């Protein structure tokens, strides 16, 4: 029961944070220079048109009133209307969010799958050549701009070798009719993975490097624990000690760093989507900003916040699942 209660408690805790996010985005959107009416209607609109627009978007009312309207709108799932796309903001977000989540989650999977063996080997062979290689790789990983990795991958693997496509990211569950050169769902999945490889690596490298560093130091510490000494004294084989005794304990800091890395990864998705011309949330917010589409700017910023908050809750619950003391300790 502890875990469920803990989850609910964490969800309830996130409500003030979400209201805070809305406040910040509303405040920022209010500061954007330029008259929204003029942007919508041009420099010399008819008076009737101006009033109609002002009434529709509530621009004739004071800011705090509009804020409360917006807040209650968000609570009921109404994020406003995108002027640029002439569609509800929520509809645009629901169209683009899966692409960004697909990219980000894949990037994390790539990062975890490569980083954990690297970190474990590094810790096991501390100060040996394998450790040095792994540390240099992770040092370069944390120091390289993700968008530059993307550019280099495009130049090498798309332009020179022609192995991977340079732009776009179709979803694996897309309708085969919409994807060029695909007839069955299986081919759609193949095309999708083919497109995914390079942006996933570009976005995941930083996470990979960070997780490797944490995994290494955490494993080094765990391998010095009393229980490991005891297992050694009992004659348990070294590989079994690493797999069974040291590994699980060492994963707690790793989960924390994954949760915190989400913020970087979601921000990095904006850059990765720009490099690979992927139509996700990142491109949506840039389009919204370039077209001064206020409600779309607020909606996308808010949604990035929600994605991060949800991600952190998921990692917190995972943490509590592995280490039950967390769920029972916080009452």
């Amino acid at each position, binding site marked *: 029961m502890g875990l469920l209660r803990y989850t609910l408690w964490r969800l309830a805790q996130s409500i*003030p944070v979400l209201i*805070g996010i809305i406040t*910040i*985005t509303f405040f920022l959107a209010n500061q*954007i220079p330029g008259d929204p009416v003029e942007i919508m209607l041009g420099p010399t609109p008819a008076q009737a048109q101006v009033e109609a627009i002002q009434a529709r978007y509530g621009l004739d009312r004071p800011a705090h009133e509009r804020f409360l309207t917006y807040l209650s709108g968000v609570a009921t799932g109404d994020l406003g209307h995108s002027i640029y796309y002439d569609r509800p903001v929520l509809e645009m977000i629901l169209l683009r969010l899966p692409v960004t989540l697909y990219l980000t989650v894949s990037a994390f999977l790539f990062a975890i799958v490569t980083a954990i063996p690297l970190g474990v080997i590094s810790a096991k062979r501390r100060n040996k050549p394998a450790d040095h290689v792994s540390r240099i790789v992770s040092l370069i990983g944390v120091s*390289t*701009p993700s968008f530059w990795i993307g550019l280099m991958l495009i130049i090498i693997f798309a332009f020179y070798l022609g192995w991977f496509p340079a732009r776009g990211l179709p979803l694996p569950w897309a309708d085969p009719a919409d994807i060029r050169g695909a007839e069955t769902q299986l081919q759609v999945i193949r095309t999708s993975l083919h497109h995914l490889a390079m942006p996933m690596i570009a976005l995941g490298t930083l996470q990979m490097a960070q997780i490797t560093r944490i995994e290494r130091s955490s494993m080094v510490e765990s391998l010095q624990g009393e229980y490991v000494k005891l297992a050694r004294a009992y004659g348990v084989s070294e590989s079994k000690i690493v797999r069974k005794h040291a590994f699980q304990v060492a994963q707690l800091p790793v989960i924390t760093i994954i949760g915190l890395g989400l913020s970087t990864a979601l921000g990095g998705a904006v*850059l990765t989507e720009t490099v690979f011309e992927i139509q996700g949330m990142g491109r949506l917010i840039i389009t919204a900003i370039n077209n001064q589409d206020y409600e779309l700017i607020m909606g996308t910023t808010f949604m990035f916040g929600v994605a*991060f908050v949800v991600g952190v809750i998921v990692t917190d619950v995972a943490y509590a699942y592995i280490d039950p003391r967390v769920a029972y300790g916080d009452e």
Partner: protein
Amino acid sequence: MATEPDPQTDTTADGSESGAGEVEARVGLRYTLKQVKRDTTALMGIYTVGFVTLIAVLAAIDYYLLDYAVAEMFWYSPVQDPDEVQRLLPPVGMENQFGAGVIEHPMGTDHRGRDIFVRLFYGTRIAITVGFMATGIGLVGGTLIGAVSGYYGGWIDDVLQRITETVYAIPFLVLVIAFMTAFGRDLTFAMIGVGITSIPVFNRLIRSRVVSIREEDYIEAARAAGVKDRNIILRHIIPNSFAPVLVQATLQIGVSILIVAGLSFLGFGAQPPTPSWGQMLSASRNYMLPAPTFSLWPGMAILVTVIGFNILGDGLQDALDPRINN
């Protein structure tokens, strides 16, 4: 107090040599520098950071005081389009569809015929400035909020921590983009925006230090002696948190340089023709096929600079951690 000298007095007392029989203290700036000197990686970090900073200072002098006079005298102007335009020349010795590179352009030329090397050189100014300024803003803001929050506790702590948590809850690149849309797209707001997003990092660090230091005997003593809260925070608590903050700040400079490069890549930050690395990468995107090396150089510059700060940070961390050295 005897086993842990105040780092503030320790940093200023560089000249005075301690007694021969005295045990060396394992904290303070002098001890740290000694440890850093022993560590080759940290030394490499110091040299890299020093080298890049020196370039940035030279570029800044030439830009602010001489309006690129030195650049034009010895090389090419980093901002003016040349009279005799040779677009997208490859680096020396390499050949592409526009022919072989010439020796005056060791890294080739960009899409407007400007020398890439000179633009990289002058782009260092922007990278180093934003790195230090943004981190400085985050450091000062985060230290103050963290110290006040941790020292007073109670509702002040609650309010301040909820606010920084909320700032932290928006992915920081998105937050800075929204911030710059609202206030301005130029470099100043990029620095302020990145600085604000790094406040939570320093806040968390300082607050946890303060909460543990608050109960120390010498703080108790200072309070009993009637020292004002403000002075306790500024004179005792903040200097005592110096070590981890220094490490975090060094690493944060690298992070800030990466974020600002990303912002420039998206068109938020230094505006053309001012040379900045992110903006050069952004321009190079359209010429990846005819001039692939155009994209290579600015990325390498960012990589080398950020690696410098990262290994310096790691080296400092090892040097400042008494558990590691024995």
